[in-house]
């Protein structure tokens, strides 16, 4: 029987599969300044993440442990990679832009100063065609926002 490709490549691009199988940031940080959990009780996805700030208050490092589908793990890893070295303000702006991308597939911010990081997140844009999966992609961002806000729990339900 023919393989599934290319039927599912809109959602499961190589880069997404690679980050889900081999997350670069999939680890607990030994030293951290903030931590928060993201929980989707309806589907059982759960992510715990840790954030370390640099002296200038930018995000120095993000690590996470996740239990969930390929989309949520890839999204957590791409997020960690993308927000590293950025200010908290930029990280929040990226979340706003990513939410639009995940829900609509469109990227109005791709012409702005966020163009470069948004391009890195673009492989996840295919999720917009699967409304029930959007929350898988946004869960780690909700957890990051909670960590930045100093709250402990978040959900993308």
């Amino acid at each position, binding site marked *: 029987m023919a393989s*599934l490709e290319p*039927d599912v490549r809109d959602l499961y691009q190589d880069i997404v599969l690679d980050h889900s199988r081999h997350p670069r940031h999939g680890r607990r940080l030994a030293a951290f300044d903030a931590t928060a959990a993201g929980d989707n009780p309806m589907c059982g996805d759960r992510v715990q993440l840790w954030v370390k700030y640099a002296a200038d208050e930018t995000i120095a490092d993000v690590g996470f442990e996740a239990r969930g*589908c390929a989309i949520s793990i890839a999204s957590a890893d791409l997020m960690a990679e993308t927000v590293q070295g950025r200010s908290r303000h930029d990280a929040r702006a990226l979340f706003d832009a990513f939410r639009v991308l995940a829900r609509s597939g469109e990227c109005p911010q791709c012409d702005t100063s966020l163009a470069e990081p948004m391009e890195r997140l673009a492989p996840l844009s295919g999720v917009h065609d699967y409304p029930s999966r959007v929350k898988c992609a946004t869960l780690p961002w909700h957890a990051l926002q909670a960590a930045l806000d100093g709250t402990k729990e978040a959900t993308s339900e």
Partner: protein
Amino acid sequence: MNVDIRPATVDVARIREDFPILRQTVRGKPLVFLDSAASAQKPRVVIDAMRDAMETQYANIHRGLHWMSERTTEAYEGTRDAVASLMNAADRSEIVFTRNSTEAINLLAHSYGRGVMRPGQAVVVSAMEHHSNLVPWQMLRDAHGIELRIASVTDAGELDMAAFEALLADGKVGLVAITHMSNVLGTYTPAERIVQLAHAYGAKVMFDGSQAIVHRRVDVQALDCDFYAWTGHKLYGPTGIGVLYGKRALLDRMPPFLGGGDMISSVTYERSTWAEVPHKFEAGTPAILEGIGLKAAIEYVQAIGYDAIAAHEASLTDHALTRLSGVKGLTIIGRAQDRGGVVSFTLEGAHPHDVATLLDRQGIAVRAGHHCAEPLMGRFGLEGTARASFGIYTTHGEIDVLADNLERVREFFA
């Protein structure tokens, strides 16, 4: 004497013609609908019955003194007769209409749990309940001082009968509220044995028959169960109408659930008196059109016959267990001896949601997640499963399509 001469086989090709939706394509592929345990598709006769009622014969029921109301009341109450016949209830007044199984169980937890049971008594449920047959009892426990006991299931996904009997032993159990067929594992519980044991220890029994009544003939008198809850939309009927069967003597002892119109005998500013069973439990304008649709669904199922349905689904289930067992890395969750057409599984290296999405891309609808049975997932050390479930319109070929595509999913994530 009525001799049933219908052959115990199903002409699936002909049955599929009765379900308009099965001609749909999804994402460019023929729809392979393997999610009937969540909600079944509707045959033309159900669709037509509801449309015909709206076009030709509709008014509010039980109150109008005009022709339309009287005819509509007859049609709606005809469904009560059809349900009583389907379940072999001793009397039509033992059939209470609700919105769905969940509301039927909540009605029981409220009216029997608070109205008849006493604090200090216990309710037994199993470890494989749908949330709808667990949460209402947790609420009763917290509000009314009722102990909640959980009967364990074995690794094969069967009710542990020794453990079940042990829970009854102290005589404190007032009610056993238990699934007749698991929506996750496909397991049938040994209903006759459960009733015998429960009654021997002085407990009443309610079955959550949401899944079972779709696949198997339910005879409440032969079973001697005290209550039986189910929902129309899984039996090829509309959403919004469910059933609580209860023995008349028990229903008579129970106070009402919701207050309002239709459930009263007389009302003054000071107090009200209740209508007779079953209307005592049916406050407000009911799901009239859905009731009419449900009658058409019941007649449709009875015309095919439970023997033929059960034979077809047993054959499908055997085929599915064989084909899915052949998929490398696939584990079937639940290996009960007596089981129906619901098969849960995990696939090594692929999360159930990813499995469901990849199958969806091929036009195959399965459910993935905890199936509203989160504690059961914990019991088996799982976050979730993918689940394929079958109906009378499911074909062996569709199961082959599922198995072939699961091979592709496995390769994709390998």
